[in-house]
Structures are given as structure tokens and as C-alpha cells.
């Protein structure tokens, strides 16, 4: 076995990327805090003079604060698209409340006898503000800026979801890949940044403004300088822009494979699966990593590029059933195999499209399909016994579970219940081995990599051949768990690189090799 990679190794290997992410993160934080100071401090001053407005302004800022950060980022996408712009706006809105509120509290908290004395001596409103109110409120205002900065260092990790970069790329990549080193390589610097900025600002909080006038002028310059860090990493340019999920970025059967096997060199953004398809359709991204049978491939008129060098492992779906169940009810296997070979990639995509995008009931979609393929039969007596069918939370699973229920009830005297929404692979597979369900549809690739945890050399040797993978997985499951893989259904729900159908047609690109050739031409 290979020696285990340590956090130190990871940081060393990825130091360039880590530095870039840290700079981006710092930039995002400070641009947004700077904007919030520029708007929030004057707003706070205004509402000390027009108290009627204070409820309205503080209320607005308070509502912004209560919106969950990921939702706020989500709201920004229709307005501002993806990338730094919506992230900065969302972070700015988050930073507003502490800054406005502390400015308001700080200035309102100045001893009224001091302001009266100042007015009585003949200071103008402006002089009162600059010579008395702001200097005396400064510690409170700085506390607000500190709070806003620390909040923003935290929230900025989420910016990775909308392709704005930052340390969130490592954190979410690490979570998706179950790679603790990667996760810590993002989380530890983020925490250190928060502590560092908090400490630096705390030093500024109690300076005597009048004695250190220069510091006050230098401060915005420092903020601006830190903000400009955001621009540094953006220099690497290429014709095309790719948006990949954090998971895809870190996988060998993902971006790493694209780089090493195809030699692809492209500017990448890390983005959440939830908004990636739409962003491609809106031409914010040119190519994305996706799941080949996802309904959104159809909804957003995307086309899957052929993986002609086979870096993506086959994810053929097939029902897996415990041996005991098959022995007990021999009529079960033929009934389940009826589905074999009927659903290819584009049919599955279409079925998912109906469920995910047209919001049709999975049960209705399943029945319509069976009726159209003359597989549907009215339910039998259902007296012989009951089969429990599980599924994961994805669209594929719901539809397939419903089809199997109808086939079992139509072709045998068994009844069937579906237990859909069993979360991820681990949960549903544990349910099967612990006799809480009798069967569920699984993917060969998942069986190979996640459940059997097949060693790298073996994987490499068989991965390009879907038949070999199926055989290997069947044998392994039979031997280790006493579980049988029935015939594959036909579709391959694998990772895929996809682009807009129109763009692909225009550039005559249909495979990843062709795409790589086009991108690397420059």
C-alpha cells in the first residue's frame, strides 16, 4: 500500500493553490468589508440624525443578516450571475448590520453633556462629527468592523459554491472527497485568517485617533491593498472557462485525469452542483462537470462529450439483491430482469428531466414508461410475501424503485414497498446488509470504488472496460456480502464533461480529445 499522505504533504504539494486561495479569500473579505464601511458608517451617522429612519435601516440590515448565507448567495445568482460579483455583494450585505449598528450605537452613546458642550462652544455639525462624535465612537465602530470581518472570513468559504474561489474550494472539495487533509488545508488557514484579522483590528481599536492621525489615513489604503489580492490569481487566461464541482476538482476520475490523461489546460472555477448546469446555459461557463443522466442536461440543452480515453469509470446501474431473497422467491429475478436493456442514457436523462424539472410524480413517470414499453401489468394478489425496495435520494433511484415495485407486483404474487430517500451509498448499503431492505439499484462504479474499496492498480487495469468492472463487482459482492448483481439496466450515469449543444455544434466538438485539442490550440 502507498504510504498515507499527511496534511503537511498535501499543503506542500498544493502550496501554490493554497496561496492563491488564501489571497482570494482575503480579497473577498476585505472588498466586501470596505464597501460595507463605505456605506455602513455614513448610514449609521445618518440615522443618528434622523432617528425615524433608524428602525427602517437597522431593520433592513437585520433582515439581511438573518438570511442563511447559502440562500443569500443563491438569491444573488439570478441578479448577478456567478463568480466574485454576487459573492462580494452577499458578503457586503452580511457585513452591513454590525457596522451600521455599531456606528449608530457608538455615536448615540457619546455623553450628551459632551456634545452639548461642543455645540455650545460653537462647533459646527461637521466639526462635532469629526472632532467629537467619531473619535469617541471609534472603539465601538471598530468593534463592528471586527465583527463584520470575522463573519465575512467565515461566510466567504461559501463563495466557492458560486465560483468565486477562496479557501472554500479546499473545504468543500475535502468534504466531497472525504479527504481530511484537503478539508483541513482549507479550514485551518480560514480560521487563522479570522484570528489574525481580528487581532490586527483589535490593535487599531484603541489607538488614540488624534495622536495617530496617519494611521487613520493608512487604514483605507491597507484595506484597498488587501482587497486587490482578489485580482492577483485571475491572470491565467484561456479561451474557455470550466466550472467543476469541488469533488470533481480533486478526483483522479475527474479534473486530475483530464489534466494527466488528456493534457487539458483550462481556466477552472469551483462551483456548486446546484447552479452549475444553469450557469453553463447562461454562458457564464463553457464547460462543466456533470452527471450524464441528470435531467438538467436536457433542461438546459447541454451535450455530453464522449470520454474517448476512458477516464471516467463506468457507472452502469443494476438491481442488487440478497441471495437469500432470490432463493426464497425464485420468480423475483426474471421479473427484475425485465427492465434490463430498456433504458439508455438519453432515456434516463429524459425520465430525470420529467421528475426533476417538470416536477412530475416519479410513480407516474415510472408507470408511463412501463406502459409505453408494454411491460406494465395490473398488480397480482400480493399474498405471497413482501419485498422492500430501497433507493438513494437521487432522481434515478426514485424512478427505478417505482418501476421495480410495479414489475414485482405485476409479474409475481409478491407485494412491494419502496423505501426511497435513504441518503447516500453508505446508508442504503448498510440497510441492505442489515436486512432492513431486500434490494436497491446500485452503480458498478460505486460498487467498485466506494463499497469494495478496490486497490488502485486493479481499478486502473479494468476501469476502461465496463464489462470487466461489472464482472469484478459481481464476484466481489457475491464473495464478501452474499449479494447478487442482476443484469445491468443499460444506462451509464457517470461523470461527464458537457457543454452547450449549440457551442459544441458550432465548434464541431463531440469528444473530450477534440475539446482538449481546441482549448490547447492557443
Amino acid at each position, binding site marked *: 500500500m502507498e504510504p498515507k499522505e499527511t496534511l503537511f504533504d498535501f499543503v506542500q504539494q498544493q502550496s501554490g493553490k493554497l496561496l492563491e486561495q488564501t489571497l482570494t479569500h482575503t480579497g473577498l473579505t476585505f472588498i466586501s468589508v470596505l464597501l460595507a464601511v463605505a456605506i455602513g458608517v455614513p448610514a449609521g451617522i445618518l440615522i443618528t440624525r434622523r432617528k425615524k429612519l433608524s428602525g427602517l435601516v437597522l431593520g433592513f440590515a437585520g433582515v439581511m443578516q438573518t438570511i442563511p448565507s447559502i440562500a443569500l448567495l443563491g438569491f444573488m445568482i439570478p441578479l448577478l450571475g456567478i463568480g466574485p460579483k454576487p459573492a462580494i455583494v452577499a458578503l457586503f450585505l452580511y457585513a452591513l448590520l454590525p457596522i451600521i449598528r455599531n456606528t449608530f450605537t457608538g455615536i448615540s452613546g457619546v*455623553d450628551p*453633556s*459632551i456634545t*452639548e*458642550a*461642543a*455645540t*455650545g*462652544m*460653537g*462647533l*459646527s455639525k461637521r*466639526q462635532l462629527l469629526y*472632532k*467629537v462624535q467619531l*473619535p*469617541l465612537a471609534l472603539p465601538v465602530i471598530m468593534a463592528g468592523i471586527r465583527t463584520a470581518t470575522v463573519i465575512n472570513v467565515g461566510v466567504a468559504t461559501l463563495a466557492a459554491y458560486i465560483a468565486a474561489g477562496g479557501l472554500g474550494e479546499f473545504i468543500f472539495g475535502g468534504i466531497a472527497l472525504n479527504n481530511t487533509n484537503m478539508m483541513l488545508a482549507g479550514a485551518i488557514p480560514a480560521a487563522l485568517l479570522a484570528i489574525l484579522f481580528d487581532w490586527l483590528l483589535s490593535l487599531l481599536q484603541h489607538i*488614540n*485617533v*488624534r495622536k495617530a492621525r496617519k494611521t487613520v489615513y493608512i487604514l483605507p489604503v491597507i484595506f484597498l491593498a488587501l482587497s486587490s489580492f482578489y485580482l492577483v490569481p485571475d491572470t491565467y487566461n484561456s479561451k474557455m472557462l470550466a466550472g467543476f464541482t469541488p469533488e470533481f476538482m480533486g478526483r483522479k476520475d475527474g479534473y486530475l485525469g483530464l489534466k494527466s490523461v488528456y493534457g487539458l489546460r483550462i481556466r477552472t472555477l469551483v462551483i456548486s452542483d446546484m447552479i452549475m448546469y444553469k450557469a453553463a446555459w447562461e454562458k457564464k461557463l463553457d464547460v462543466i462537470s456533470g452527471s450524464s443522466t441528470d435531467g438538467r442536461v436536457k433542461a438546459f440543452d447541454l451535450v455530453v462529450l464522449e470520454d474517448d480515453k476512458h477516464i471516467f469509470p463506468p457507472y452502469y446501474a443494476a438491481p442488487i439483491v440478497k441471495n437469500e431473497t432470490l432463493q426464497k422467491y425464485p420468480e423475483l429475478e426474471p421479473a427484475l430482469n425485465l427492465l434490463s436493456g430498456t433504458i439508455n442514457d438519453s432515456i434516463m436523462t429524459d425520465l430525470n428531466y420529467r421528475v426533476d424539472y417538470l416536477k412530475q410524480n416519479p410513480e407516474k413517470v415510472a408507470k408511463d414508461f412501463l406502459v409505453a414499453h408494454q411491460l406494465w401489468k395490473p398488480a397480482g394478489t400480493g399474498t405471497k410475501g413482501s419485498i422492500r425496495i430501497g433507493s438513494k435520494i437521487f432522481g434515478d433511484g426514485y424512478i427505478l424503485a417505482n418501476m421495480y415495485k410495479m414489475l414485482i407486483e405485476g409479474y409475481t404474487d409478491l407485494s412491494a414497498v419502496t423505501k426511497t430517500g435513504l441518503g447516500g451509498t453508505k446508508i442504503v448499503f448498510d440497510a441492505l446488509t442489515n436486512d432492513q431492505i431486500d434490494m436497491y439499484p446500485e452503480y458498478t462504479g460505486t460498487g467498485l470504488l466506494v463499497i469494495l474499496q478496490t486497490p488502485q492498480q486493479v481499478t486502473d487495469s479494468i476501469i476502461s472496460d465496463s464489462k470487466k468492472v461489472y464482472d469484478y463487482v459481481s464476484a466481489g459482492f457475491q464473495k464478501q456480502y452474499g449479494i447478487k448483481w442482476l443484469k445491468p439496466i443499460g444506462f451509464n450515469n457517470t461523470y461527464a464533461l458537457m457543454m452547450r449543444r449549440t457551442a459544441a455544434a458550432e465548434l464541431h466538438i463531440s469528444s473530450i480529445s477534440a475539446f482538449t485539442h481546441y482549448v490547447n490550440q492557443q
Partner: protein
Amino acid sequence: MIKLDHVSKNFGPEKKAVNDISFEVHPGETLVLLGTSGCGKTTTLRMINRLLEADSGHIFVNGKEIKTLAPELLRRNIGYVLQNTGLFPHYTVSENIGIVPALLNWDKTRIRERTITLMDKLRLPAAGYSNVYPHQLSGGQQQRVGLARALAADAPVLLMDEPFGALDPLTRISVRREFKALDELNNKTIILVTHDVEEAFELGNRICLMNEGRIQQLGAPLELLFHPANDFVRSFLDPQRLQLELKALKIKDLWTWIPDKPATTDNARLLTAENSCWEALDAITSQPVTVMHNQAKKIIDGNGLMEAVAAYKQ
């Protein structure tokens, strides 16, 4: 110097804080606005430097209607002393004193010299105190800095709102004594607000006694004591009447009623006729005193003095 002409001020529809007030303060005079809390004395004061705007009537400072002046410019020419000093906590003592001169664009040397002069006069030697912050000073010292700040630009008019109100009784007496002795104040026109009758009688050339927004009586201390305009004035002064009378009356006021007694001993203590009866009484407790007035000499003992007071009142 300062003139109020039928001035009124309302807070809300029903509450008349100040109701049709007119008075005039002459140059170099100290007028005390006296009354219980809520009588309108502070409101009256704050209208003069336009911290409040009068609802009706006219106010003149130095012959100019104040509404015609920019409030900031008006205020820079009026010294203002508050009960809670209102010193800037982030300014040192000398910076606090220099605020108004700086607003008036004095050059730095002039401000520094002026600050040092004032600090010396107020017994806060610049060497030890100029770079100290207000919170490092005692209450009495803070109040002296507040006074120095009001005097810094040498404004001819001084408004003082309960200037000794926040001090303990002992400190109050000593600061008040210094205040009286301060030559800087000799030519100032001063309006001082207080609720302390003794303070009013000690510091005021004239006293304006107010109640419920109206002037009850305006006159010299002796007039209020011996010719009260109404029952309110009488009852307001009653609790401290004897002490006030003895302090207000000078020996020369009683001269004709003091019985003639030939001097018996030469070593009796000597007072002038400008001393108050209170001071005379204080001296008499040990032995009779000799008083000189217009080349005449009289020996006064306790009985003689009290008889004279009783005769004066009739």
C-alpha cells in the same frame, strides 16, 4: 449687553417652559437665574446661545438680535460652562482649553500662551497639568478646566449652567471663592443659573427668581429679602432668611442704627463698614469689634448688631 424681550418657549402644546420673560443684563454685571428645578431657568439660558430657539420674543446680545447671527459664530463669542463640565475626554487639559481659540483660528503660540496664563490663574500649573486627560483630574479641577475653557477666547459674555452643582459642598465653597476672586471675570457679563439660594446671594449682583416659567422678582439681593414682590418670593427665601440677611447686609447699611459706644480697648479687632453683618457676627463671638466708617469708629457687640438689624427691618 444681553436683553430678553417677551421671550416664551413651549415644550409640547400644554407645557409652557418659559412664559413671557423680559430682562436686561448690563455690561460687567452678574445676573443669577434662581429657582427650583423645572422653573425654566436653564431653558432661558439655553435660548441665549441658541441651543434652544425661542418660540416668540426677541433676544439681543451686544445689541444684535441673535436670530440674525449664525449660531456657531454667536456661540464662539459666548463662554459656556456646564454642570457636568462636558470636557472632551480624548483631549488633554490644554487642548480642551484651546478649543474655542482654535475655532477662532488663533495662531498656535497665542493659544499656548493664553492656555498657560489661564491654567496658572486657576491653580492648575501648566507644567503638571497641560498633558493630563480630564479623567485624571478631581471634580473641582475638572470644573476649573471647564471654566478656563469658557474664558479662553476672552468672550465678553459668560453663560453658566449650575457650574458648581456637581461638586461636594466643601469643594463647591472653595471653587466658588476662587471664582469670585478671579480677575478674568471682573469685566464679564455673566448669567448664572442655580437652585442654590446661598450661591445666588453670594455671586449675583442681581437675582432673577423664577417659578413656573415666569419671573417672580428681579432685583438686588437686599430688595428680594426686604421688599419681596409676592408670597412666593418670601416663602422661597424664608428657610435661610436670617443667614441671608446677615450676609447681604453690610455694616455701612446699618451704620445709623448701631448704638454709639466709646472705644474701651485698643486691641479690639478692626473691621471696615464694607464687611457683612455675617462676618461681623463671626468676629464678635470672641470679643466686640471696632468698625471704621467715614473716619468714625464704633465698637459693635452682639446685642448692638442684632438691635441694628431689627431697626433696619422696620
